[in-house]
């Protein structure tokens, strides 16, 4: 993988941002309408658009010959984790949400996670993908071996 120059890094970053802006707004509209009158089909459509954004990000990586940067990985994991925790908490606290939206949201979160894992396995192979998240081994070895990072260089 050839490292990108400063301008190319900037071009890639701007394109990634543009893709996520174009995906995030329609997804937000679908989630909002899905939680209101729309229901399950719209919530699932919202997840589908998020996945489309992810696919667009993967295509950008392929075009520029890069992987996900550590910041992108971190941000993605935080947003996904935050959404999941919020969903679980709201399902436990709010009965109406659990009654109406539990299934589509569960399917959405599981599918999103499955797609990401599928991508990692396709991209890096099962062993390397697992090692990328093998924090216990990292702690044992004292410092993280950059060769096992899933985030490709830019």
């Amino acid at each position, binding site marked *: 993988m050839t490292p990108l120059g400063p301008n190319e890094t900037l071009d890639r970053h*701007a394109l990634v941002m543009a893709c996520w802006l174009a995906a995030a707004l329609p997804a937000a*509209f679908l989630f*909002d309408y899905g939680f209101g009158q729309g229901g399950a089909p719209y919530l699932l459509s919202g997840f589908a658009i998020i996945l489309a954004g992810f696919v667009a990000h993967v295509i950008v990586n392929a075009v520029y010959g890069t992987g996900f940067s550590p910041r992108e990985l971190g941000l993605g994991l935080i947003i996904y984790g935050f959404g999941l925790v919020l969903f679980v908490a709201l399902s436990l606290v709010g009965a109406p949400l659990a009654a109406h939206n539990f299934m589509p949201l569960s399917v959405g979160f599981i599918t999103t996670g499955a797609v990401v894992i599928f991508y990692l396995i396709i991209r890096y192979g099962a062993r390397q993908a697992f090692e990328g998240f093998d924090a216990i081994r990292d702690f044992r070895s004292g410092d993280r071996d950059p060769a096992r990072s899933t985030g490709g260089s830019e």
Partner: protein
Amino acid sequence: MTSLLVSILVIVAVFGLYLATISGRHTQQASDFVDGGQSLPPWVIIFAGAGITLASLSLSDHLVLLSTFGLQYNQVAVGIICVALVAALTQKRLWLASRLTSLRTLGDLLGDYFGSTTLRIFMLVLLFLFTIPFAAMALSQAGELVDASTAGDIPSGLAIWAIAFALFVCSVIGGWRGTAYFVAAQSLLVLALLLFFGGFTGFTVGKLAFTAGGIATTGGVLPDMIPGVIQFTAGIGKELPIGGIWTTFAGLTFALSLGGIAISPGFSFLGMTSKPHRGFAFGQVWMIAGVAAGALILVGPILAGEIAAGGSLTAFTARLASLDQMVAVGFIVLLVAASQIAVAFFAGSGASICTVELTSRYIVPGMDQRTTRFAARVTLALVYGAVAIAASYAPLGATIFSSLTLSLSVQLLPAVLGLCWVRWISRSGVLTGLIVGGLFVVFTESFGLALFERLFIDLPWGRWPLSVHSAGWGLIPNFAACLLVSLFTRSGAERDRRDRLHDAFEKSQPARNGNPAATTAKWSLTLLWAFFALGPGAILGNKFFSEPIFAGTVVAPGVPSLLIWQVLFWFVGVFIVWWLAYQGRLSVIDQLPRHQINLVPDVNPLFEPTTTPWIARLLDRVTGR
């Protein structure tokens, strides 16, 4: 709704500011500010091209006109393929010419190639028409939309100045690269939202009511049919055309005016400042002809059907708001974002071109890099100030002036074709054609008619007489005069410099059209497509699929016959553009040009820049601090 709309618009503005800041930080040389180091990435060309095309049509106007005139106006969406065709014919060659000669703008290229100061002046006039009235019209529409959707909570004046300030800050920080990033990102957003609202409206709001009921036109306009090939009326303002103004000739000539987008100074500048990749072909074929035209052809009628049912754009937004506030806000954001693309692109490119063609060349020649950046920023401030003032205080004037813009822009077609392909088109031919064509445009548009009738007497014709758009009125005499005069002056004194560029083209990128049969087939098919998709043949679409001639019966295809016709010729149009752009190598850059040429070797005092030392000293004082 107001707070939600403001929040989303602020998010988009912050996004633009972020892109501008990171690109501003990466600017290595001060002159990169003006042209992005001539290395804009292909994705910018790909997305921005489609977005600028949609924005130039004015999305909100398009939807309102579609709801008023029905599918006869949808021919305009099919006409977007003309933008791709003209871009395929010219964009790669202009890029090559720019790299071969080190000239950075279309005005400089045409001026040096034909050795004409008049052409430079014409290009500057055209640039100002795009940069100020056209951008002001778009900004004014955005302000009106925000005003109407917030029920006056945010008055249009405030919205106009806030949007103009936000875009100005993005441009002044990020320079041309930042502006191009923002425009491309907004274009992607607009395309995504357009497809989203097509689906959402079709499945949720109207349950695809349009396919059964068509677009409910009123006022004697034919529902979902083209009213004829041509109508012998005196034009808008003099006689009311029967069944609607959008005859096949109106559609065809309007599509020709859309070709003016592809050879506008800003669009050409965008192409010339890009890196050499396959972005041109992909952008023209798949994004402009494919996605942009397709989205409008398919989504436009769905939205227009609901707008027509509600009676207005505001009523449709209110209907969306009754379902979900955020979705209604999203629809407004779609329309405002389309207007923002037009403002940011035409103001940003206008300021950059003005710095290159006017400030650096005539006002303060020999500026150093730092001064160039300062001059570009001053120009940006002046342009955005003028745009905001025109949008706030003279929206009608801006609309009247901007009606000339595309029609005058497409009058450059003979000149650009001469530069790119036909070496015997001469300066005299181009100038004669421009003058004749320009006069015809002016006197078939509101500006010329109002001016003449106020000063002298009433003319017997109105706007677009015989239901032919002003671009068509201009192009016919323009081409005729240009070809006729060029025939007699093709071997004039300036032939050498024209040959120099075309010889360089042949050396670096010879035209590879294949065998003569293939070439004939390509262009014959293109003309046939134009005849059936936009020209007189399109009238067949009215009943072709609902009352097939050979079946001898009436069938119910489920959607209006004209829409099927339009979709069919959209597919064929995309294929033709693909054939020309990829297979005909019109838009694929095989190898970089290796040598440079100088178009103006002989020094002519008439064309030398005038030095104005007092302005240079003044600028030096300000920038030296």
